């Protein structure tokens, strides 16, 4: 996916861009509303991440202009404020969702998916491995004609494996990505979700293989 990140804090902007690129996304950075307009004039984005306090204006002004220009690129607002009413005000102004800094990128992913899912005509996010077609946006796997729905953690686990097939992930690595740091997770938690995911993949050539003593990887038979 291609993101436009409008954020005046350069440190944060660069780190967010770096983090998103790890997931294979392309990110353009804009440090001001003017820069954002320049980007939008020449490129199309799947999603805009918008900070509220910008040097040359308020993010809400951008939202109003954005909606007035009938541009339908979804916008997720990032703000330091956490009140629900603030979120509602943003949504009323035309934001698609709202994210409170600092955020878990899993949450950003979840919200982005939710936003894109709500929009018709969004670019397809389907990916395939062996005979398995995985659509993170709709949280489904397709095996021939059969579509199977994934729960959130199953989805995110599969996403991890899909991002680098055949790569072996240790349990710890999977845990770190699947659970937030705030959660306490038991040692066998990851086995539970791997087990669940395997059941969703039953019948497919693609399978999650246990590499004894090391971890798990996605392979094709």
């Amino acid at each position, binding site marked *: 996916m291609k993101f436009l990140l409008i954020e005046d804090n350069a440190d944060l902007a660069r780190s967010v861009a*770096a983090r998103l690129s790890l997931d294979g996304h392309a990110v353009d950075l804009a440090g001001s509303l003017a820069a954002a307009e320049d980007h939008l004039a020449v490129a199309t984005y799947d999603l805009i991440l918008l900070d509220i306090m910008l040097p040359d204006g308020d993010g809400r002004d951008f939202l109003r202009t954005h909606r007035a220009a009938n541009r339908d690129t979804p916008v997720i607002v990032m703000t330091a404020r956490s009140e*629900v009413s603030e979120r509602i005000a943003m949504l009323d102004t035309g934001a698609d969702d709202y994210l409170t800094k600092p955020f878990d990128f899993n*949450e950003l992913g979840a*919200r982005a998916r939710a936003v894109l899912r709500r929009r018709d005509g969004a670019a397809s996010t389907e990916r395939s491995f062996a005979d398995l077609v995985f659509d993170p946006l709709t949280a489904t796997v397709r095996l021939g004609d059969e579509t199977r729905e994934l*729960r959130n953690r199953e989805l995110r686990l599969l996403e991890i494996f899909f991002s680098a097939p055949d790569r072996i992930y240790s349990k*710890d690595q999977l845990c*770190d*990505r699947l659970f937030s740091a705030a959660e306490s997770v038991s040692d066998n938690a990851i086995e539970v979700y791997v087990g669940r995911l395997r059941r969703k993949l039953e019948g497919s050539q693609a399978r999650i293989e246990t590499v004894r003593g090391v971890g798990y990887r996605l392979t094709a038979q």
Partner: protein
Amino acid sequence: MKVPLRFKSIRQRLVVLLLLAAALLSLLLFISVRAIASASVQASQDSILGAATIAIAEELRGGEEGVAIEIPYAAFSMLGSSGEDRIFYRILVGEDTVTGYGDLPMPVAELTGLEPVFYSRDYQGDPIRLAAVGRSVLVEGTPRRVQVIVGQTRTGQEMIISRMSNRAAALGMGFFFLSAVLALLTAQAVVGPVNSLAEAVGRRGPQDLRAVTRPVPEELAPLVSALNGLMARLTAALSRTETFIAEAAHHIRTPLATLRTHAEIAQRISEEQEVLARLREILRAADDSSRSAGQLLDHATVAYRTDQRAEEDLDLRAVMADVMRAAEPTAELKDLHFELSVPDGPVPIHADRLLLESAVRNLVDNAIKYSDGDDAIELRLTVDGGTATLAILDRGRGLGTMQGRDLTRRFARGSNVSDVVGSGLGLTIVREVARALSGSFRIENREGKGACAILSLPLA
């Protein structure tokens, strides 16, 4: 005018000053009435004294044998009419006193003309008033100078004056008491606008910081203008406080976001077990900080909004739905889902939206935080009588051994949550909001497993 005494109230000051003025006027009234009375009594005594003197003078006859003197009985009798005064008289022919009181004081001036001359002297230890008149009488063809002096003590006069003085004093006192009553009424009338202004300002709600526009006497205009200035400054200060809270949030959360992002990146690119463990701790600390910062700001906001309530009519169902929607993606990450049950009709509530949302969001956040994956979080809204009850039920670990009340203390945390990020402020915020909205809050263990948080609020 500088008043040496320091009065605590304008009314007191006014009353005292008016009373002083009234007392002064009463005194002046008394003195002038007394003076007029004295003068008129003096005048009437003089006229009688003069008449008596002239009556004697008129009876003087000349002749071959000397001056014939006849004192008309009525002359002395009428002087005695008051029955109170001693009388003295002296008749001189030339320089010789021919009868009467030889030592009776003589007038200072030469007696000319026919009209009596009046003067006052002390005689035999008493102050007396005298009238003297001179006549020329022919004795053996030679004019002889005859002087008639009649004096009278002033006892009767003093009595009349003292009677009139008493009346003047009564008049003065009456005047003073009337003035006192009027002074009180006047003070009341003068202080009235101040009181009614104070009442009008005092009756205002805590959030009403509008300028005072009611008409006031021009003397109060500086006060009202100062008051309005203060209101404006207060409004500005409050708005700065709000801005400050927002700024503070921004300045804490943005670097945290950067930190957290870097940590996540590091976590993704590192293979080292030791590094990963450290990163986990960093992320945990960042989340902890973030959450604490959020709740501190929430708490500050709640405290600030509690003083500065901007209440509006809300539908509690909508508030709940909004909070739930905002929290849904977070819940989803743990494969949690919400089960919302609300009444069919609106649940009207008159409250500060921000306070209410803070409370509900903290409860929902708690429920998400302490729930294990794959569970449902129930949001139940019921109405019973005049009370709306919002119950949030989870299947998390519950409260452990701590009592609900203890958990709502500031920074208090359950005994069984050391492994979960939290500041201990969440339930404090909820409790404070409940109090601010005249509701109640309790949290208890749920049968089986989990906790049940119940927020009750009065309906609008």
